[in-house]
């Protein structure tokens, strides 16, 4: 019996996730259609760009500096064992631009912005504000989701540029001031091996992650049920869902894009 109920549980969960995936896909289609619907909501989009981009900057900066710094520490202690301490700058730069910049910045933004999108739209749902938009002949996807989607899509790559740069600077500070690497070695080794594609593919990833954050955040909010408790649940699911999707899609993006 326990085995059966276990299988039952797996089946139910699978159906649930397929159902959610279907809803995501439908919402994505509505958003894509909404992108071409005039008038484009410029003012709302710039508001969201400020929220997603400018306000997330401090969090992203701190995350990036300390990630770069700890990478330098760890790489140094490993590479010293075979005399390759000089390559710390290279490892920091490649790791930051290809993986950690996009992934960590996006996960931080998912926590900060994805959750607030879910909470805001969820509150609007349970207080009938989304219904009110419909009665005022306003498509709620066009009014609420499209600006958030476009803002995240545009701002995430910008944030990741900062994350890349500050990660490298964080690594530099530790390598030069703590580990005694010479400044020119660090800079030369960084520039010598870093290719443009390392950065550009990282930025493409960031754009994809931006879409994921907005889509999942908005979806969880938009389809909230069950009052304040439902809003809380939606917020959690937005963060967890977006973070997991970021990590999974990151693997496939790396496999196909690099």
């Amino acid at each position: 019996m326990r085995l059966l109920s276990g299988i039952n549980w797996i089946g139910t969960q699978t159906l649930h996730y397929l159902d959610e995936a279907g809803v995501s896909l439908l919402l994505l289609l509505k958003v894509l259609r909404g992108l071409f619907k005039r008038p484009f909501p410029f003012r709302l989009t710039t508001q969201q760009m400020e929220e997603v981009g400018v306000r997330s900057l401090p969090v992203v900066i701190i995350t990036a500096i300390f990630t770069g710094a700890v990478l330098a520490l760890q790489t140094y202690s490993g590479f010293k064992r075979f005399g390759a301490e000089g390559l710390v700058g290279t490892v920091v730069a490649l790791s930051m631009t290809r993986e950690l910049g996009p992934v960590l910045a996006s996960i931080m933004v998912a926590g900060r912005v994805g959750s607030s999108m879910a909470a805001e739209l969820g509150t609007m749902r349970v207080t009938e504000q989304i219904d009110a938009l419909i009665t005022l002949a306003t498509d709620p996807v066009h009014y609420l989701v499209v600006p958030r989607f476009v803002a995240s899509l545009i701002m995430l790559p910008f944030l990741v540029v900062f994350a890349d740069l500050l990660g490298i600077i964080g690594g530099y500070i530790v390598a030069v001031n703590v580990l005694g690497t010479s400044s020119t070695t660090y800079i030369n080794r960084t520039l010598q091996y870093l290719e443009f594609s390392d950065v550009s593919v990282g930025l493409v990833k960031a754009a994809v992650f931006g879409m994921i954050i907005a889509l999942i955040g908005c979806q969880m909010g938009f389809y909230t049920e069950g009052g304040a408790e439902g809003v809380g649940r939606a917020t959690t699911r937005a963060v967890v869902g977006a973070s997991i999707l970021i990590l999974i899609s990151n693997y496939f993006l790396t496999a196909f894009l690099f």
Partner: protein
Amino acid sequence: MSDQPTIRVRDLKKAFGTKVVLDGANLEVWPGESVVVIGQSGVGKSVLIKCIIGILTPDAGTIEIDGELTTEAGFRNMDAVRRKFGMLFQYAALFDSLKVWENVGFGLMRHSNLKPDKVREVAEEKLRMVGLPGILDLMPSELSGGMRKRVGLARAIAMEPKIILYDEPTTGLDPIRADSINDLIIQLREELGVASITITHDMTSAYKIADRITMLYKGKLIATGTPDEIRGSDNPYIQQFIHGRAEGPIRDE
């Protein structure tokens, strides 16, 4: 009276999962008429008006607005139909990120070519109609429940609709405020000549504002009549409801 009802609902059905909410509801609203739908909490009165304005899609049945069949598959003109409506929500549903005047003028900002200054003027005029002048720049969070409802009403009438849907307009207000909302509803009908559907379980309000009252029970509109006819109805369901008795044919399920 014209020969065509403003709203005609036929055999409307709507279920959520296994819970059947509307099970063949029929309703007609004529131009300038005030129809009140009474019924217990949670029987689907809101679902009825949300189907009419196209927030929810019915499972079966038809809805005609001014002779236009809005429930037809592939009907693409719903936003144009919605502009004939204003709706007051139970908790006003004001947009809490926007100031009062932006709330009231929301439809005008989006669907007219009026400049923001002009929209503010219109908003002030509508707010004066509901007795709230001089609050244009407040945020909804700064308003009391009764004020929010009146701002919601100002928003509902801002586009000069032909039809207003009121979802529990007096619920949650003290009797004096509730009565001032009733007066407003009557005044709007007399001044603007709008048709309306009001959802309520407040019988005092229903008697005061209704041309016709109809009761929703088990997914159907079971009896319709003028306030006097409803008062004198021998239908035991109606008698139980309008007198608010726990004993009778209607049982809690």
